[in-house]
């Protein structure tokens, strides 16, 4: 497999200006060139996933084929790039910290 290339999509000024749709649209124009495309969302909140959040706060919970409860932007990604994504496509800060803390408690990080 050729080396992957990474496009990072950040947002400035205000939220909810369509960063998700923009990322999804970039996916589509690259796929139109015959490239294999995946889209991933990094969410900075401390929840492990949005599954237990209020829909008022978070909007829809999108469910992937492998059963992950994810951000609704993954719905845009799948609809725009026409590929099935999986649980690795939505990473939250809560997942990262949970993973590190779990390792620390098990003593895996001890020297």
């Amino acid at each position, binding site marked *: 497999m050729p080396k992957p290339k990474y496009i990072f999509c950040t947002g400035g000024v205000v939220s909810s200006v369509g960063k998700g749709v923009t990322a999804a649209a970039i996916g589509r124009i690259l796929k139109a060139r015959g490239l294999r*495309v995946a889209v991933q969302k990094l969410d*900075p909140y401390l929840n492990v996933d949005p599954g237990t959040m209020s829909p008022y706060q978070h909007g829809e919970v999108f469910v992937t084929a492998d059963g992950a409860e994810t951000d609704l932007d993954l719905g845009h990604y799948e609809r725009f790039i026409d590929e099935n994504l999986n649980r690795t496509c939505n990473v939250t800060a809560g997942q990262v910290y949970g993973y590190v803390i779990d390792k620390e408690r098990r003593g895996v990080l001890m020297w």
Partner: protein
Amino acid sequence: MIVEVGGTVGDIEGQPFLEAIRQMRMNVSRHDTLCVHVTFLPYIGATGELKTKPTQHSVRDLRSIGIQPNVIIARTDYPVSQDVTDKIALFCDVDKEAVIPLQTIDLLYEVPLILEDAGLGNYLVEQLQLEVGKPDLSEWRNLVKRMRAAKQAEPLRIAVVGKYVELHDAYMSVKEALFHAASAQNCRLEIEWIYSGDLEKEKGWDRLASAHGIVVPGGFGYRGVEGKIMAARYARERKIPYLGLCLGMQVMCVEFARNVLGLEGANSSEFESAEHPVIDLMLEQRGITDMGGTMRLGLYPCQLQPGTVAAEAYHNVPEVQERHRHRFEFNNAYRTRFDQHGMAFSGLSPDGELVEIAEIKDHPFMVGSQFHPEFLSRPNQPHPLFLAFVRAAAQRRDALPQEVVNNANGFVRKDVPDETERRK
């Protein structure tokens, strides 16, 4: 790989991700990563100007973390002149052709075409040194053209009866799935968002009555459920096309139990310890106390029963795979009685134990699915159940003289009192 970072640059909680991106960019070759920064240009009415200063500031924030954006996409509600994009390029240190204005539009699916036509695709390919062929967006262009044409076509009113209707984002995939299906059949989709709690208070019935089809989407908690049950009854009795998703299928079963089988105390055991728990907690779910990630989630097979509305919608394939998110299911103790009185179980799990799709036999289209078909609908491939539902709704629209629909609210309310009465 496209990686979107949630939130905006400058939020404290997003910093670790941005730092990780900065470090990663050092470890891979210069041509392997690229940063696209999406900003917003506010419009000052007094001077009639689009302001670039907030964009400059957010780029400065990004640089202070050590990331220089390569592309800036400037979202705006107004047309952007070349002067403005040139100014952004100069002050944010980005190539002129890499500043791309993106004006708000009514059709999301046009965004790839706008970005492509602004040269973004070629710029990305060049910067990332990708070896690719010529872009082929012809299929997508046709799709957008068809959607545009459908926006001018005859309207099709679909009532979405839910709990979180003030926030349409809560039903994003349902909204999109309806739009895909309506566009594919050249109908202009008009969604009537109806808060189910309003129906309980005799509000919103005129809007429900004006709909050509009714969707009851998924949800949790008891608030507003009785209103959804009323909507299901209304759809069943008046033979209005109805699509129930997850909870929408469950309320359809509760309604049927109460008003067709005469089981007054029927309900889902999610809401009360009902006399007739026609919807009950799944066996596998008993004893689970953690709420996070413990539902029946993801792709599971559903076998279709030949000769049903659902099977026909799926073009008579024997089995489909659909995405799920639920804890409760149809209680099999009631299956025979439901079946004898006019409800067909048109989709079952392969072992026959779990009801995946239920439908009313003597009805043009009243189908409920335990799964969420909306998650599998794609603009170029509308979901079969949504397609069949929209087709049925369009048939109803075309068959009805307009005044019947418009005057329907006069006699709707007769349904309401006995239903609300009973709950007191």
